[in-house]
């Protein structure tokens, strides 16, 4: 990098740092962290994002930025670890690499690293446990019975070698409970209780799965899950909140009310790649949805780069009519109406819809 370019970046960094101190807002922290990311200083970007989250804990953008910077940091570490392993392999490096890959959700790669480690160091207990975690990750993602059986076999091997491994015991008990095999899970749950572990949730799942206490065949259950005959139980923490369906119903009703008002021809509520639509919308590839997505994205980029904060609303007029958009974070609500409609009132309704949906989620800034 040339000296002049370096000086420009340094000056920009100083300006952003000053802005963060003088006018702290999620946007100012995001801008500063973004510059650090562009400079390849992911550790500093994580620090800035964490400072920002301490002040604005609900900021979706800061959370996403911290996740992105953290993952970039992990990817850099993977590169470093691979080089060191190639130079002089040892258990510690293999295990650190496997744990990072597991954190990034790259289970296939983690499995390969663990198998490689076990070939070199067959007695390493941490590699065997990491291998079981990789197999479990694969199983929970694909629900292939062979991978489930392999994960159970691997966890049992860990427990045979290390009966005191509470982590392996918990993973095995959870898998058995989720499969609906409480009999097989019971000895593990008892050992966990004896060790003073918190297993109320697993015990509840075991109770829900087996009200009459009958015996079960784990292989048959794995096959039944794979074929879709039965589904895996979700731990309570990962279950959808009860109000979720009700919330979606309210969004649908609000969109339908807008369409019924007469002047609105199309209405949509978009979150990420999902959309709820009402009115004359054919499918997910409808031009209206494409334009709304595109404009919300480019509008956000325009506003942020021009330093006028976060994009919130847009009104697009043309021979086709008027498109009104209200956006907050990843949530976008939009309508298409005829020219001459009361745009302010419609934007107000869209804003209310976006705000109430975020309140139900407990999100937003």
């Amino acid at each position, binding site marked *: 990098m040339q000296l002049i370019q370096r000086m420009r970046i340094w000056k920009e960094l100083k300006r952003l740092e000053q802005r963060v101190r003088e006018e702290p807002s999620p*946007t100012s922290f995001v801008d500063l962290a973004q510059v650090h990311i562009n400079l390849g200083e992911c550790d500093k970007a994580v620090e800035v994002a964490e400072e920002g989250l301490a002040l604005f804990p609900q900021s979706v953008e800061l959370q996403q930025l911290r996740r992105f910077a953290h993952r970039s940091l992990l990817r850099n570490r993977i590169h470093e670890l691979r080089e060191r392993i190639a130079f002089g392999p040892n258990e510690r490096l293999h295990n650190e690499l496997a744990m990072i890959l597991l954190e990034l959700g790259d289970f296939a790669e983690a499995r390969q690293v663990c198998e490689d480690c076990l070939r070199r160091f067959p007695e390493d207990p941490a590699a065997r446990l990491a291998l079981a975690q990789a197999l479990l990750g694969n199983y929970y993602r694909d629900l292939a019975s062979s991978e489930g059986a392999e994960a159970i076999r691997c966890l049992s091997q860990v427990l045979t070698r290390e009966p005191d491994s509470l982590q392996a015991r918990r993973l095995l008990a959870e898998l058995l409970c989720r499969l609906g095999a409480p009999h097989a899970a019971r000895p593990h749950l008892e050992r966990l209780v004896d060790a003073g572990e918190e297993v109320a949730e697993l015990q509840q799942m075991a109770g829900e799965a087996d009200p009459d206490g009958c015996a079960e065949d784990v292989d048959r259950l794995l096959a039944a899950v794979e074929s879709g005959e039965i589904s895996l139980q979700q731990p309570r923490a990962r279950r959808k909140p009860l109000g979720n369906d009700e919330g979606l119903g309210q969004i649908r009703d609000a969109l339908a009310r807008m369409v019924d008002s007469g002047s609105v021809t199309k209405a949509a509520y978009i979150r990420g790649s999902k959309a709820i639509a009402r009115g004359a919308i054919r499918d997910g590839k409808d*031009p209206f949805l*494409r*334009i709304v997505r*595109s*404009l919300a994205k*480019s*509008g956000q*980029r*325009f*506003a942020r*780069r*021009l*330093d*006028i*904060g*976060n*994009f*919130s*609303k*847009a*009104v*697009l*007029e*043309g*021979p*086709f009519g008027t498109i009104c958009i209200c956006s907050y974070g990843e949530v976008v609500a939009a309508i298409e109406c005829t020219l001459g409609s009361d745009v*302010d009132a419609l934007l107000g309704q869209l804003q209310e819809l976006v705000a109430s949906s975020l309140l139900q989620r407990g999100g937003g800034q």
Partner: protein
Amino acid sequence: MNRMQDTMAVLRELGGVRGCAVITLDGLIVAKSLDASFRQDAVAALASFLMQNTERTLHENGMEPLTMLVLQANYGKAVFVRLDNSYLVVLMDQFTDVRSCREDIDAAAAHLRRLSQIA
């Protein structure tokens, strides 16, 4: 001072208007009157990016070009009005009511269209 520049000066006198410019679709500034807080190259590049992107999406989806776009953010608003081969861009603070300026902006856009036809 040319007539386009005069129109820019008239628009700048409206309450809450922090800047205005006529920008071609490929980002060239034809006339401008911007507040010192805006960098003219940034305004031109960003306006061009936004309009090109929106026009392309409309075209790809078989829709006619837009006539007006109003964009609102936390600390400002931007209005884009289509001229013949360019756009009038008006930047405002967040408190300005776009409806109250609409007539003046439409009049300025009509005047700019006439000027570009004469040119």
